[in-house]
């Protein structure tokens, strides 16, 4: 069964078409990677899925329900969580408080009900030692981890990761990959936009290639990366 399904979704800003007739399904529990050159419309696609922007045409179904016209907040409550390309923590709140805000409001529960879950998430994302530090004082890796933790705190069924590995050192990247693999192993469906290809391919089972808002490839990561069209468009290599 597919948890998320997009059918002929299009979005334009003025004359610029940023999402062009996109259709694809994400099966429950799968990890899907999205690649494409800068400006291909990857983040826009995320915004359409989370409801931050509305599509001009087409339908989006989440868990069998048509959510095309549902608000971002309600989509969050039904189980779509995301991390941002540029980490946006509440800088003056502690790491733990950042999670509490996401968990209490994102799940509509009281603090008592989410306290343990939040501590669990921090344990899993290796931030537990920094729980009481204001988020403004975190390093880049820690910020990325917090971004991931905050999305996890809403207990999403579908987790959207936006370039979470960008800017990290190789060692940091490996550590983050392990955390994401761990989250994926627990059955959370993941859609991950990433330029760091080896990070992506070590987690995802399928790859989707976007170019000028169009889905130009979708399938097994190895096959996608081997295809001539993708190499030309995405990597700019003459083959």
């Amino acid at each position, binding site marked *: 069964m597919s948890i998320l399904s997009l059918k002929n979704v299009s979005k334009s800003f003025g004359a610029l078409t940023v999402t062009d007739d996109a259709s694809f399904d994400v099966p429950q529990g799968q990890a899907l990677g999205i690649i494409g050159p800068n400006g291909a419309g990857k983040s826009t696609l995320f915004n359409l899925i989370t409801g931050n922007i509305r599509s001009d045409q087409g339908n989006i179904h989440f868990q069998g329900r048509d959510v095309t016209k549902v608000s971002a907040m309600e989509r969050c409550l039904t189980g779509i969580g995301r991390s941002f390309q540029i980490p946006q923590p*509440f800088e003056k709140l502690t790491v733990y408080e950042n999670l509490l805000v996401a968990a209490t*409001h994102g799940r509509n529960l009281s603090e008592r009900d989410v306290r343990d879950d939040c501590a669990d998430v921090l344990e899993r994302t290796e931030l537990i030692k920094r729980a009481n530090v204001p988020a403004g004082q975190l390093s880049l890796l820690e910020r990325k981890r917090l971004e991931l933790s905050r999305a996890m705190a809403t207990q999403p069924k579908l987790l959207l990761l936006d370039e979470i590995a960008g800017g990290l050192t190789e060692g940091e990247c490996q550590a983050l990959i392990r955390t994401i693999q761990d989250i994926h192993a627990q059955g959370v469906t993941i859609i991950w936009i990433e330029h760091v290809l080896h990070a992506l391919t070590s987690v995802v089972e399928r790859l989707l290639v976007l170019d000028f808002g169009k889905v130009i490839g979708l399938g097994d990561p190895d096959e996608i990366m081997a295809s001539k069209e993708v190499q030309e468009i995405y990597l700019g290599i003459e083959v």
Partner: protein
Amino acid sequence: MIWVDTIIQGILLGGLYALFASGLSLVFGIMRLVNLAHGDLIVMGAYLILVLVTLLGLSPFIAVFIAMPLMFALGWVLQKYLLNRTLGDDILPPLLVTFGLSIALQNALLEGFSADSQRLPTNALTTASVEAGPITLGVMPLLTFASAVLVIIGLNQLFYRTELGRAFRATSDDATTASLMGIKPANIFATATGIALVIVTIAALYLGLRANFDPNIGPARLIYAFEAVIIGGLGSLWGTLLGGIIIGVAQTVGAAINPEWQILAGHIAFLVVLLIRPRGLFPRAND
């Protein structure tokens, strides 16, 4: 000894100014909204208590507890349906709208209550005093100061110990991201202004018991409140109390030297602090 007495009276007066300022500080801290009608809202609160006292024959200390929820509701509606619409990247609209609100409130009060100065009825408690060694302290100033400290402790507890407080701080930090987490900034702001007007009501009680008031004294209260907030450093509540105390002490010392210097001395103290510490005594790290 007269100087010790003067300074203690000034500190206690600072409690009143801190009460004026706490609501202003709260609203500014959460939504960067400068409410120019704050002083007039205090005066309106005093009239509301006066009406309750006159109509129901209550003691002002009881009437204030009826006025509080009414003022909370007023603040909530005011923020939700008027002031929220003015918030944005441009700081001018909230200034213009609250300035207009200030004028409208003054005129409405003038229309309803005339320009005659009023006072809340006093009783034995309000004129009582206690002896502390060689110094005599009025019970009212002591109560005012204690209320200011309690309000500030209460606000700090609210901010750092409750879910609502966390939502306040998260929204203040980044309203857009907060809304993605399921927080509704419009309601958070409305609640904050509601709470600010509850504090305004407490300030109004002591204003009305301590001195005469008429519809035109709001702007001067706003200035004292502003000065206290800025001396303390924007967003720091204990700083606001200290700011109130500095203005209070400056005023009583100024008045002791020459009664005409009371108000002037307060403003001079404010300017001196600004010269030495332009961002106030306890500025927040990144504002």
